[in-house]
């Protein structure tokens, strides 16, 4: 089984008044048919990494990489038009807040079926049927009613399910989820994650899960990249996150208050400037190999 996506030496830079700011610095990673978590704090470059894969870095930002290869094609060398076909068809993205991703004056059903029709050139009737199917798959109880509703009539959890339905309907190979549940309540969070997980597994897709929440990532992903100041400082299997070795990861894990383990004072992460200078760890896993 081969890797779906390979990213080599990806950098994202922004020119500022005081010189060039490197938000993402020379990171490399691969994605197979797995759930890859990218964790980091705000400003670590995790969201930019997700956007960079889709070439969604806005000017004056500069995107550089040796290659970003999706199933043998280098995404950096294809035309803008071809890239638009990749987005949505091969790689879909779910953002934190569904409110900003849905058109507020269009019925939900129309939005999803339009996404499908653009992709599959299906008839209106087929698209409608497929949409209702998909809404059912994200465990929406009354798909007919949701089909006719407008986005503002939906709760946050519902909205995110709808986004998942809409993003998965063209059958992409890869789903990039950027903090998909951070705006949701804990009880809803679990449901949405489970729905996403089931669908991704069922279709043998690759998932890039971007989050600041170490707990969620370790529970939900197969493999984790830990980003700090635009670099991968550590990569490990998600279920072995508690055995992490890099002081940053350890510090981050220890700074979270825990319900079952009361402490008088939380450990505070002592940032070491040396971390900024360390070379990025490679997140590439050779084809067919299971990460250790």
């Amino acid at each position, binding site marked *: 089984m081969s890797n779906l996506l390979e990213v080599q030496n990806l950098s994202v830079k922004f020119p500022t008044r005081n010189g060039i700011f490197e938000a993402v610095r020379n990171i490399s990673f691969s994605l197979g048919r797995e759930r890859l978590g990218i964790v980091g*704090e*705000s400003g670590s470059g995790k969201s930019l990494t997700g956007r960079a894969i889709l070439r969604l870095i806005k000017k004056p930002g500069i995107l550089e990489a040796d290659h970003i290869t999706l199933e043998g094609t280098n995404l950096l060398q294809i035309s803008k038009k071809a890239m638009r076909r990749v987005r949505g068809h091969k790689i879909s993205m779910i953002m934190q807040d569904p409110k900003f991703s849905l058109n507020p004056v269009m019925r939900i059903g129309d939005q999803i079926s339009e996404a499908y029709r653009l992709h599959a050139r299906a008839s209106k009737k087929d698209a409608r049927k497929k949409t209702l199917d998909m809404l059912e798959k994200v465990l929406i109880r009354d798909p007919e009613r949701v089909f006719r509703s407008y986005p503002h009539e939906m709760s*946050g959890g519902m909205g995110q399910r709808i986004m998942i339905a809409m993003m998965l309907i063209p059958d992409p190979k890869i789903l990039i989820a950027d903090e998909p549940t951070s705006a949701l*309540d*804990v*009880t*809803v*969070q*679990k449901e949405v994650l489970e729905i996403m997980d089931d669908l991704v597994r069922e279709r043998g897709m690759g998932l890039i899960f971007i989050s*600041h929440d*170490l*707990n*969620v990532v*370790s*529970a939900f992903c197969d493999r984790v990249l830990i980003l700090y100041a635009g670099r991968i400082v550590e990569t490990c299997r998600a279920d072995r996150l508690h055995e992490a070795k890099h002081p940053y990861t350890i*510090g*981050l894990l220890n*700074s*979270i*208050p*825990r*319900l*079952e383990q*009361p*402490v008088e*004072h*939380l*450990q*505070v*992460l002592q940032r070491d400037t040396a971390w900024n200078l360390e070379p990025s760890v490679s997140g590439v896993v050779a084809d067919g190999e299971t990460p250790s």
Partner: protein
Amino acid sequence: MTEKTETGIELDQVNIWFGEDEQRVDAVINAGFAVPPGGSFGLVGESGSGKSTILRAITGLAPTWSGNISVLGNRLGEKRDKEFYRAVQMVFQDPYASLHPRQTVDHVLSEALHLHGFDNPDKRIAQILDDVGLKQSFRFRWPHQLSGGQRQRVAIARALIIEPSILLLDEPTSALDVSVQAEILNLLKRLQSERDLTYLMVSHDLAVVSHMCSEIGVMNQGEIVEMLDVAALRALEASHPYTKQLLDASVQKRRE
């Protein structure tokens, strides 16, 4: 409560609603709890549970309420007087929204002092910056020159510089990274013991509330469904089904 004379905050049969008549939406129904002076009480719930609305009613930002709210033994009416604001201060959720974008740290802190007629502003500002762990060089910076954690420290400094005895905390760390959250929570804990503050904290995060508070009220759809102390919470001894569900979700998130 047993000691009637010594109360920090006391709520009794408080209802809060928005709109009138047909459009009336009940945000909080029959809430009641008491926080002793120097104590810390946490309200946990999900969005829309009415937990922040209680803080707003106490501070007078949500005007339509009934029942009995008393602060330091004084029953609150329609209006809040200067004495109230002197005694009760609040830290908001989003440090990016709670600082005026065109005011320096110095301006924010001096204005607080000016409003309550404090003398010696230079000394007090230097002292409070020290207390919240900001270097003196931060005094003349603008909000856009500060990180989220630094902003929240300024917000805490603004609240504490007029020496209140009660601090209302509305999700003070939910907009911050976990490592910064730890710093702010430690700071709040230290300040509480140093200044003998009474805390009323609102959060969606059970772990954060149980770290900060000794007594916890769980809110769901406008009602406090269960009150329990932190030991019971840590032992996962909840009796109400909603509390169980909440505990489940918070603990399972990490296991599986």
